[in-house]
């Protein structure tokens, strides 16, 4: 009898943990709150420092998850309840109504073409629209539609119903109800990842005020060949190619008023996005405002050097104090002090500003901690009290991997995810040390 392991969160950490656990012979239930697995990594254009195409390397793993005989996907689902103790947890999974019969939907997209209801796309960070019936992104797994009830005219107002008419597979079901699936689980793995801090909370950086201030994740989508601009580097205010870009690091992080910690990955992704931007538009000039350039991984320092030398990226050690609208509707005016004790106040105009906000423990992290009555650390991440087991939470049989334990990059998340598989095997083979 295969033991059940429940993995919460299907970003890269959850996916890797599931694949390794499944390869070890455990029966894995992977729970993801959005309609597709993939997490934030699916949104990335490239990955540092090799500029590997993110989707190219992630999508085979997503497909493997869907194909693996030991993995059951619960997408568009949330954890409803967790009870019991190791090795007999009871997990209630709330599978939300998708209004789609997953056995019938072929993912053909005829319905999407006809759906009249347009909604900002979460995957595209609001930069483009999706329909109320949708596939979150082309490589989504499972390749099944979801109807977002809040925006569906049929479900909300009993009007329309066009998707039902055009679906030749008979997959649309407006009366579908969500359901709770009860599972026994020997071990629970938490991989709930991060959310970007909402930078509107920091009005000095102009996000939500100046049109041409975007978040780094939005910029990632702008750079993506499959993104809202088709990979053309344009700024939001007038769809023109910017000539002069700036990044601001540590927005809301390393900041006593907001979040004390360092998000670990921003220096590198800003460097990556800079290099990519100059590859899209060779004449673009880039400035990165930073505090310490934390390039600590394999090939990172060289990557920063390359950005400086081959791509002309200017690194300025300073945190801008104020960002305002430049003259007119386009561009921004950034005020900062030059480095040093005798720092001079300077104002510079940029066509576009990219904020690298603090990466926060995701909202699910808090919900699950509450549900399990588990400790979070001072920064809101899951506490892993024993150094010998960096993926063990304060509760036996509940393991933590990836960003939900601390800020880390993809390779560290993947390592922890595999580590979780080893710990699961240890815990369940009775040879606990």
């Amino acid at each position: 009898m295969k033991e059940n392991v429940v993995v919460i969160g299907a970003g890269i950490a959850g996916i890797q943990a599931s694949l390794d656990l499944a390869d070890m012979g455990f029966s894995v239930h992977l729970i993801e709150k959005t309609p597709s697995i993939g997490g934030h990594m699916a949104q990335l254009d490239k990955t540092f420092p090799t500029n590997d195409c993110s989707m190219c390397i992630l999508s085979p793993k997503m497909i493997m998850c869907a194909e693996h005989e030991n993995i059951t996907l619960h997408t568009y689902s949330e954890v409803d309840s967790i009870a019991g103790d190791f090795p007999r947890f009871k997990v209630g999974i709330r599978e939300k109504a998708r209004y789609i019969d997953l056995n019938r939907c072929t993912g053909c997209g005829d319905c999407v073409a006809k759906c009249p209801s347009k909604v900002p796309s979460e995957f595209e960070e609001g930069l483009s629209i999706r329909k109320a019936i949708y596939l979150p992104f082309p490589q989504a797994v499972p390749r099944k539609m979801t109807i977002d009830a809040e925006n569906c005219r049929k479900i909300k107002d009993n009007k329309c119903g066009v998707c039902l008419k055009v679906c030749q597979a008979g997959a649309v079901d407006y009366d579908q109800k969500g359901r709770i699936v009860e599972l026994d689980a020997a071990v629970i793995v938490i991989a709930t990842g991060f959310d970007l801090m909402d930078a509107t909370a920091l009005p000095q950086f102009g996000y939500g005020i100046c049109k041409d201030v975007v978040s780094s994740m939005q910029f990632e989508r702008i750079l993506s060949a499959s993104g809202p601009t088709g990979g053309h580097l344009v700024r939001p205010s007038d769809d023109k190619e910017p000539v002069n870009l700036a990044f601001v690091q540590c927005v809301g992080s390393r900041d006593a008023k907001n979040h004390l910690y360092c998000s670990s990955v921003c220096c590198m992704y800003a460097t990556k996005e800079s290099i990519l931007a100059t590859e899209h538009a060779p004449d673009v000039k880039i400035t990165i405002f930073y505090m310490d350039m934390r390039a600590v991984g394999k090939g990172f320092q060289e990557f920063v050097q390359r950005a400086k030398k081959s791509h002309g990226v200017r690194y300025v050690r300073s945190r801008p104090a104020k960002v305002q609208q430049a003259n007119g509707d386009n561009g921004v005016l950034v005020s900062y002090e030059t480095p040093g004790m005798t720092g001079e106040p300077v104002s510079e105009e940029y066509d576009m500003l990219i904020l690298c906000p603090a990466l926060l423990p995701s909202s699910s992290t808090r919900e699950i901690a509450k549900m399990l009555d588990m400790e979070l650390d001072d920064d809101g991440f899951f506490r892993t009290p024993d150094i010998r087991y960096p993926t063990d939470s304060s509760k036996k049989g509940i393991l933590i991997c990836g960003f939900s334990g601390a800020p880390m990059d993809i390779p560290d998340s993947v390592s922890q995810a595999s580590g979780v598989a080893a710990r699961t095997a240890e815990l369940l083979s009775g040879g606990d040390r």
Partner: protein
Amino acid sequence: MNDPGKEISRLAFDERGADYLLAVREEYGNAGPAFVAKGEDVGDIRTDIPYQLVTILRKIYPYMEDGKIAVVIRRCEEKALNELIKRGIIDGDRIIRIGLACSEGQIEACRCTDPVPSCVDIGSPGKGWNEDQLSKELSAMSSEERLDFWVAQFRKCNKCYACSTNCPVCVCDHCVLEECTFVAEKGIPPGMAFHLIRAYHLSDKCTECGECERSCPAHIPLLTFRKMTNRDMKDLYGYESGDTETVSPLLTTLEGDLLEEEED
């Protein structure tokens, strides 16, 4: 001309300790390869006939279980031998080289750019040719003219396989040109693919010995085609066939740090 046979025999057996000698010998008015064991009469050795002894060596080598074999080799044969050694087909330690410098006339016949073996035992070193006139003319032509030229030439091909049979570096027993996986047309002439595939296959090993051209009964200027391909290989990758150290660029990775994406 004094008898080179004596000198070759002395070099091979007395000075360099060979057990066998492979050389070109005249017998009954015919010249051909001769395989002589130590102690046997070497006979009437000829050094003025452009015979590729390495081709013979490669063919008999698998049947030679031991012993050292001395071979009279020109520069082109030496390079062919190196290619075979590099590929593990022949064990270089078992081969004794007797270097033969080509005559002016032979150099001219091959439009040879590299005529002097690394060690000259017989003959005196001549000066290499600069350029192949025909390939120069072809390069100056338009693409259409060049195609017309080669189509006319290749139409003469009667698919006798002399070019590959006599090639010192054509190492395959079963040749894809004898089948129709890639060369579609059955019958004669065999079409362009035949010659292009041969050109590609030889691009990292041809030593410009000219044997294909000499043995072609249809007089197709195959050596010119070889020279053009070799020049391409040199222009692209700085590679020249014929030494034991450099691996064919077609089999290796690009230079540089694999972590870094090529800038394009």
